[in-house]
């Protein structure tokens, strides 16, 4: 069971454009819709490779860290796993439901209360309404927001906001969790609670990918670390 790869990247390349106005992209896109042709694989003017020839596997229940400077392709990998974008070349296999916590609270609305946002954000992360109804007590308790849970989140402090977002995220019933720079949430108490929660997720066979600049923190929680630079994997750490 434990050696099933739940995420498999095989020779993945991803191209991005630097240009603001994409005069060609829509035309290309429409042409490829009509002719069924794949998009061009070579670089055109103003384009660059965000990922070059990335291959790795992640097994069920593993915790993998992605480490590297800005622009090394960490977030692009998470976006590819969560199906937000697609690879230019190569194959990606992802098995199971993904909870992409790429930015905490991306789906929060300031005018809605904590409870309302739990439903909003929870369904965005792939939970069903009935699942959320069952879990709502747990989420509220974990966030430690008490009476503030019925207050619009625009009245929250930034710490409270992040705590709520994190609680929603880690209580989602996904199989794969993606965290982007979200380890530094809340005070020390809340942080240790978070680390415990990560351990629980793994104990239930959840797979975790963490992106961070903080190498020491990654070493503390991850089984393996993928070192990225300029869109390639350094040191060839095989996972």
């Amino acid at each position, binding site marked *: 069971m434990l050696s099933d790869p739940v995420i498999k990247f095989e020779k993945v390349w991803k191209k*991005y*454009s630097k240009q603001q106005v*994409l005069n060609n*992209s*829509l035309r290309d*896109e*429409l042409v490829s*819709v009509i002719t069924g042709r794949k998009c061009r694989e070579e670089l055109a003017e103003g384009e660059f490779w965000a990922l070059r020839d990335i291959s790795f596997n992640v097994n069920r229940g593993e915790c993998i860290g992605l480490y590297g400077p800005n622009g090394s392709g960490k977030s692009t990998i998470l*976006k590819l796993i*969560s*199906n*937000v*974008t*697609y690879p230019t070349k190569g194959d990606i296999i992802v098995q199971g439901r*993904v909870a*992409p916590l*790429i*930015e905490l609270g*991306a*789906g929060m*609305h300031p*005018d*809605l209360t904590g409870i*309302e946002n739990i*439903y*909003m954000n929870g*369904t*965005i*992360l792939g*939970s*069903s*309404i009935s699942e959320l109804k069952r879990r709502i007590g747990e989420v509220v308790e974990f966030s430690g927001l008490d009476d503030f849970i019925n207050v*619009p989140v625009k009245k929250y402090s930034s710490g409270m906001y992040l705590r709520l977002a994190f609680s929603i995220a880690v209580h989602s019933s996904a199989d794969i969790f993606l965290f982007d720079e979200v380890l530094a949430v809340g005070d020390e108490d809340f942080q240790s609670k978070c680390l415990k929660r990560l351990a629980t997720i793994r104990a239930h066979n959840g797979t975790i990918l963490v992106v961070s600049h903080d190498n020491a923190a990654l070493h503390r929680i991850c089984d393996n670390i993928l070192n990225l630079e300029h869109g390639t994997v350094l040191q060839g750490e095989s996972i």
Partner: protein
Amino acid sequence: MDSSVFKRLYAYKDLLLVFIWREFLIRYKQTAIGVIWAILQPVSLMLLFTFIFGVVLQTTQKNYPYTLFYFAGVLPWTFFSGATNFAVTSLSGNFNLVTKIYFPREIIPLSGVAINFIDYLIGLAVYFLFLLFYSVPLTWNFLWLIPLLIMMVLYTTSVSLLLAALNVYYRDVKLASTFLLQFLFFATPVIYSIDAVDNRWKMLLFLNPLTFIVENMRRVTIEGRGIVLWQLAAELAGILIFYFVIYRIFIRIERAFADVI
């Protein structure tokens, strides 16, 4: 026809529900009169048109009571313009969701169609009160409203998806759509009747599916007459083809939205 479209929407039906529910909550939060706005908007437009065309300009519209005539036209129009207006910026405005999390992108514009349809139904209930007030006889021909509503929703959905997708690529679409909606308002017989139009222009106006929908909504409710079947078949076929073409293209290009938005 394309079952995968409905399958993937079905898998995300809870998200669609939550989006609709969210829009409803946001719209009426911190408002004093809440849902009454849904009635106030079309009713005030109807009163305005009645005043201008009935009292000031003293035009006659097929001997229908003015209020019924304008209300029947205003309701589909506010639905169409409300939904498409919402849709244009629905994807580009939610770029923080679109670039971070995957879900079928049509859910956001569709939630706009849905909330505007709820408003429409509330307006329709008020319209029926007006029909009662003018003691218009209720006939079986009212059932023609059902295919008309389906056509109205399908057409509005197609235009909404098209505008939402195009605005991801070109923000010009937002600017153009405001102007196009004004244009389309006059190309739809909301404040006039198609019978007053010269035959040469009639065919041109019927290229706009809203013309057919508005005219026949008046016909089946106020006059209690049925729809001409071949006209219904032709319009329905046109709308269905438009819908499936747009939806297909939308699904094909949606995976690139996160990269270009």
